[in-house]
């Protein structure tokens, strides 16, 4: 019969009714436990301590690595700060200089070059149309011109000229509207006189 692994307590000896006289002297009996409870308790405590040591170690190692990277960045920052500050100061000065150039560019671009418009008008206007006056304003320009020849074809000449102004590759893109304001016969000369208003596009005019 196998021996019980656990050492019987005195209480157990008392509670189990003996079927024969118990002659054992419990205190002197040998300890028959192969593995002591203390072993498990100690093992669990050591395991717990080991796990916690490992956790702490991993955490501290990570912290060390992060601190090392922080030091690396700090060294780079210390090295680059002066150069960066110089670059920033230079850029601020560059911006103020650039603002001057921009101001001049905006000023020049704020109005179309009228000499270019007049030259272009001279290039595209048919010979039978002669300018009486050109009047440039903020929002556009007014053309007053006499159409040579008989009055009959003058209306078609005028509308052809309007169309030409609208589709012209230089003037067309800068004009919003081209309107014929009047087309009347000059009683003195007998020729047709037309007045055209060319309105610039809103929001700025590109230089012709």
């Amino acid at each position, binding site marked *: 019969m196998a021996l019980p692994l656990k050492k019987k307590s005195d209480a157990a000896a008392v509670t189990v009714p003996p079927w024969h006289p118990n002659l054992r002297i419990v205190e002197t009996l040998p300890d028959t436990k192969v593995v002591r409870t*203390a072993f498990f*308790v*100690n093992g*669990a*405590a*050591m395991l*717990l*301590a080991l796990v*916690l*040591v490992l*956790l*702490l170690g991993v*955490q*501290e190692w*990570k*912290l060390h690595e*992060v*601190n090392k*990277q*922080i030091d690396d*960045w*700090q060294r*780079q*920052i210390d090295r*680059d*700060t002066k*150069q*960066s500050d110089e*670059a*920033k100061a*230079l*850029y601020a*000065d*560059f911006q103020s*200089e*650039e*603002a*001057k*150039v921009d*101001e*001049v560019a905006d*000023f*020049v671009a*704020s*109005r179309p*070059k*009228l*000499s270019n418009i*007049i*030259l272009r008008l001279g290039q595209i206007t048919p010979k039978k149309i*002669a*300018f*009486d*006056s*050109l*009047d*440039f*304003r*903020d929002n556009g320009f007014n053309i007053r011109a006499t159409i040579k020849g008989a009055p009959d074809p003058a209306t078609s000449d005028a509308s052809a000229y309007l169309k030409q102004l609208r589709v012209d590759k230089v003037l067309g893109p800068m004009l919003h509207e081209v309107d014929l304001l009047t087309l009347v016969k000059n009683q003195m000369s007998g020729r047709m006189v037309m007045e055209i208003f060319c309105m610039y596009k809103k929001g700025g005019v590109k230089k012709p």
Partner: protein
Amino acid sequence: MTNEELMLFLKKNIISVSCVVVSILIGITLYYRSDALPDAEKILADKAQEGELLAANIEDSAQLKEQHVAIVASNAAIDDRMIRVNQLAENYQYMYRLESETGTKLTDPRQNAWTPPAKNAVKTNFTIVNFNLTAQGEYAQILDLLRRLEDGEHYCRVNTLNLRAVSVNRGGPVTMAITFDLLAIE
């Protein structure tokens, strides 16, 4: 439990007790240092961002010195092309020089009164001076005058312009009345 019993218990369970004590100490350390890593990572992120920003500044400024020199030179050239608001004689001299160069005849060139910008106005580097001018001459001369004004030594924009023949005869002289602005330094 008496002290003796306690000492006896400790001696008997020295390993487990030591381990528990160490575990408690490590647990406390872990607890108190649990914020250290997130804090360090946050610092690292900030430092990395700052470092990258500085590096980008340096990288972006590779040609800044040359560009700065170029734009300073451009502005020096721009300044040379500015008129001075109060130098009326020189400003009128410019008009009459154009007159002699183009062969036109100027009548009534006038620099209009200049008022300094309001205190609360947007600060600008330059100011604008307005002029009126009427010129008479051949069509080519007048166009030459206009071109010289627009593309000349000073920055100019023409606000209004009226061009018409002096007489009813075609091919004769023309009259041009213009108002224009020149960019100026106070």
